[in-house]
């Protein structure tokens, strides 16, 4: 034990700050994220307030994210936001936080198994939505705002579809007030999503079942006014295909783009031009398995009996 004079922890020979940072960048370039993480952590421990310390923390968040370590990525982002609240790249930290939750929501299953994510736990989607909306209203002109905006729309659609699934179940269950309220939640909180017409249709049908014809007419008027070509189909028991129509439209739609790398450090005079790493925007192709087996293995059988 330590009583015998103890061996002082061998302090690594002080690798110069610059070299540590360059090693980290090269590791990042080579997509060797675990090595990059190691280097960045060492840099931060040895030179906590050096020239690169803040940039290193940013790169660290990105490296964790690409190394599929969502927890550490989120923790690193929170730490950066706490330490440098008014840093000009702090918008990137919010963006990355949003992205990690976003990826967690499109879990492993959605890519390879035909499971409709919008019927699963919306928790991660909500976190992602919140981080992106903080980014948008705090830093409207951030580089990442447009991509965040697009992803928020995707998330909104997903959350709206989730509400419609639940509403459809309560229609099947003939819990009319519950179904109407779920519909109202979409109409009031999740406008501009493809699910709004379904929500209005559900509200109309539910209120009619309850004999509240004036409320039903209100909903029906708004529906026909804004969505004239929407075919109203009954939601009650016999209704079979609503849920597929709602989900496929959404899933086939705009696919989220590749996440961008943090922009390099702006020097003292912000006016200096910042070159931005070209975010390689290659389209993420749909997984072979889900495309090929979509029809057959999809768990929503076409036949009459299942009303998912």
């Amino acid at each position, binding site marked *: *034990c*330590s*009583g*015998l004079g103890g061996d002082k922890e061998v302090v690594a020979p002080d690798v110069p700050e610059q070299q540590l940072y360059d090693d980290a960048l090269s590791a990042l370039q080579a997509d060797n994220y675990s090595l990059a993480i190691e280097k960045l952590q060492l840099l931060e421990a040895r030179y906590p307030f050096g020239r690169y310390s803040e940039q290193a923390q940013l790169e660290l968040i990105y490296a964790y994210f690409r190394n599929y370590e969502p927890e550490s990525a989120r923790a690193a982002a929170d730490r950066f936001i706490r330490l440098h609240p008014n840093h000009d790249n702090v918008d990137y930290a919010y963006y990355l936080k949003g992205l990690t939750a976003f990826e967690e929501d499109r879990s492993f299953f959605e890519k390879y198994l035909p499971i409709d994510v919008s019927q699963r736990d919306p928790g991660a989607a909500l976190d992602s939505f919140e981080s992106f909306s903080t980014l948008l209203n705090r830093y409207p002109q951030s580089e990442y705002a447009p991509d965040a905006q697009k992803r928020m729309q995707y998330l909104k659609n997903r959350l709206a579809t989730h509400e419609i699934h639940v509403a459809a179940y309560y229609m099947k269950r003939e819990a009319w007030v519950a179904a109407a309220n779920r519909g109202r939640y979409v109409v009031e909180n999740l406008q501009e999503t493809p699910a709004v017409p379904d929500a209005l249709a559900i509200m109309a049908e539910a209120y009619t079942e309850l004999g509240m014809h004036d409320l039903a007419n209100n909903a029906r008027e708004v529906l026909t006014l804004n969505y004239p070509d929407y075919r109203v189909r009954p939601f009650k028991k016999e209704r079979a295909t609503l849920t597929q129509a709602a989900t496929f439209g959404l899933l086939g739609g705009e696919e989220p783009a590749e996440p961008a790398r943090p922009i390099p450090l702006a020097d003292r005079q912000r006016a200096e031009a910042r070159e931005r790493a070209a975010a390689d925007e290659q389209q993420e192709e749909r997984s072979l398995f889900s495309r090929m087996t979509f029809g057959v293995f999809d768990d929503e059988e076409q036949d009459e009996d299942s009303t998912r």
Partner: protein
Amino acid sequence: CGMFSSEQTRQPAELVSFEQEQTLQKLWSLSLGGDLGEKHHQLVASISNDRIFAASAEGTVVAADLATGEALWRRDIEEEIIGGVGAGNGLVVFSTLSGEVVALSADDGSERWRHQASSEVVSQPQMNADLLVVQQLDGKLTALEQDSGKLRWSYDSQIPRLSLRGTAAPVVAADITLAGFANGKLIALENRRGRPVWEQRITLAEGRSELERIIDIDARPLVYNRLVYVAGYQGRLAAVNPANGQLVWAQDLSSYRGLAGGFGNVYAVSADDSLLAYDARTSASVWRQDGLTYRRLTTPAVLGNSLAVADGEGYLHLLSQIDGHFTGRYKLASAGVQSDLLVKDDVLYALSDDGRLTALKLQ
């Protein structure tokens, strides 16, 4: 490594050899028929008009003739005894594990009365002419009528939940009773209705953890040269004027043993068992004897012109009151001695842990 180093500091000091100036001669020795138990109880013997009384933890009470040590009567009360004995005015009083204060007649040991206390009584019951006062572990001081055991009054001093094992014993004078408590205060109560007359804080609790804040006064105050001396654990040795509670002097000292007074000095045993002599009037340090550290010393007693103290390995040590050097040593018993030493007419009475009472005289 961690464990070893903390043990090291607590090793009892080695006995150093020296040239014996005094020797002790055993007069008589008597067994109580039961040991004093391993529990940290403060069982003591007590002398009252040429008889000496003592009790063992297993419940045997013995009265013996002071001169010859011959047992006059024995009683086994079949209950564990944890406090006492206090003898006087024809009574022998002790307390049992179940919190009962029991009084026997000093003549024949027959039971006179019993009183159920609200908590354990682990120190020696004290008496004056008509009152019997016991100090309880829960911080209460209870005064009983000596003849009937009826409660006259009970004073509750608020003590902290965590304290040192054992309590002090009160000094019961004609009209007031002085008692030191686990909250570090010395309080004087008038004997008629037990209301406080004055109160003096001996030690102030400081430190953050509950342990650093233990400041018990765990020994009987010493009345000497018209002043009252009292010592606190992790606190101070203080001299107080009993008339008005004024603090005469105070010295930093951590001690939980009793004090002795002689040659104008006050003798104390520190918590790590070094012996110190202070000038009773001025508190100046007269001498200090560190030869017996960590030997679990008892309360010292003045014997002739030397100072006697016993230790946890059964040795009796004699020191000179002048400069504290060792003058004699006597192996009393294989078992240790924790009970306070008693001296009367230059005869020393020691009660060893194995329940043996021994009388010795200086040669």
